């Protein structure tokens, strides 16, 4: 347990030293929330609350796809996994500390966002609403980590292997209800967008417990798909 906690601490320390990671994972979600809330949420408090939950899921999606799934494949590609055969510390435990550190990072960023929301935009969440946010974070993390893993397995070794992940991430972002209620702006797009896994996660975060069912289903689908992909595909250097 002590080793696990220490390893998690070092994962967090490594993260704080990668400037680009700190920017996209911590600063950028706060920037988006503050700027959009000042522009559209100043006279519409419900929008700030709507946006805050969306931005949290935007961050969860980016962390899952770029900081977990993608990284695991890179460990295999770089031969990093082989080092664990010679040390009394398992690779799975290492991945566990990586995931834990990312979850801690997400919770801290979400807490900062909630604090900014309360201080500047009077967005106050009740206890039940906070539980929904936590469920959305956990469900989203599982879904997007495995999605990132699947994409990375299939694109490993190819030129611009991250561009596919970026493309899918941005398509999901703009065809979701994160920044605006897409189904109200364009009902056709809204219906199409519901086949994407991000919208049930966003809806669950906003208090729709029924959306928990598709979230669980997507989680199962991606878990099985990533296991099968991992077994079938050889990730070489």
């Amino acid at each position: 347990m002590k080793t696990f906690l220490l390893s998690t601490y070092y994962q967090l320390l490594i993260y704080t030293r990668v400037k680009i990671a700190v920017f996209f994972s911590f600063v950028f979600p706060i920037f988006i929330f503050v700027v959009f809330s000042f522009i559209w949420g100043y006279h519409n408090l419900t929008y700030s609350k709507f946006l805050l939950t969306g931005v949290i899921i935007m961050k969860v999606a980016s962390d899952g796809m770029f900081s977990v799934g993608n990284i695991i494949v890179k460990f295999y590609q770089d031969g990093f996994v082989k080092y664990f055969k010679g040390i009394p510390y398992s690779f799975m435990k290492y991945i566990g500390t990586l995931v834990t550190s990312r979850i801690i990072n997400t919770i801290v960023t979400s807490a900062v966002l909630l604090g900014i929301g309360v201080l500047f935009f009077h967005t106050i969440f009740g206890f039940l609403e906070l539980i929904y946010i936590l469920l959305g974070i956990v469900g989203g993390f599982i879904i997007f980590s495995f999605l990132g893993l699947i994409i990375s397995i299939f694109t490993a070794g190819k030129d611009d292997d991250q561009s596919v992940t970026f493309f899918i991430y941005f398509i999901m972002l703009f065809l979701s209800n994160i920044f605006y209620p897409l189904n109200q702006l364009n009902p056709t797009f809204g219906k199409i967008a519901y086949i994407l896994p991000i919208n049930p996660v966003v809806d669950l975060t906003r208090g729709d417990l029924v959306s928990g069912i598709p979230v669980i289903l997507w989680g199962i689908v991606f878990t099985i798909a990533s296991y099968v992909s991992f077994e079938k595909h050889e990730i070489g250097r």
Partner: protein
Amino acid sequence: MNYYVLIPLLFILLMHETGHYVAAKVMKLRIEKAGFTYKPFPRFYVSIIDNGISFQKRGWFLISGNLMTFVLFFIYLSLFSRYDIVYYVFSYQLIVETNPFYSDYTTIIFSYFYKDDFKRQFEIQSSPDSDQTDKDYKENYKNKYLFGKLWYLHFLVWGIFIIGLLSPVISTSHK
């Protein structure tokens, strides 16, 4: 989609480059090329031969494009003073022109605060024996600036600027 929004946007883009062109002519800088490119994104450009020119001349050349946009914006506000599509086209253009990721301002900042690296880039360009390409060198010193303290200051100012341009709290005072 309102395609007529492209007309004022195109006009502003061309006037931005005209600002650069006029500044280059006034300061007697040698214009290398003017045209359109797709790298790193589709845009018009005016490039000068920047070899040993002073920081002040380079700074004025770079800033002249954005100054032109600001002048046009203030003329528009003083004549019309309303929040229509043209106001938002100007806002979009000003936000893009002042961004901390890739803009004339980022070039001004790292040519001032990283003078030695900036000068070294030209030495590498003109030296055939160098084992480092100038593109690699540019990437190295840009990474010194990107996500550093100075960059975050630019980013913060840019965020406040965006809010100032688009927030209804500020905008209603113009109506």
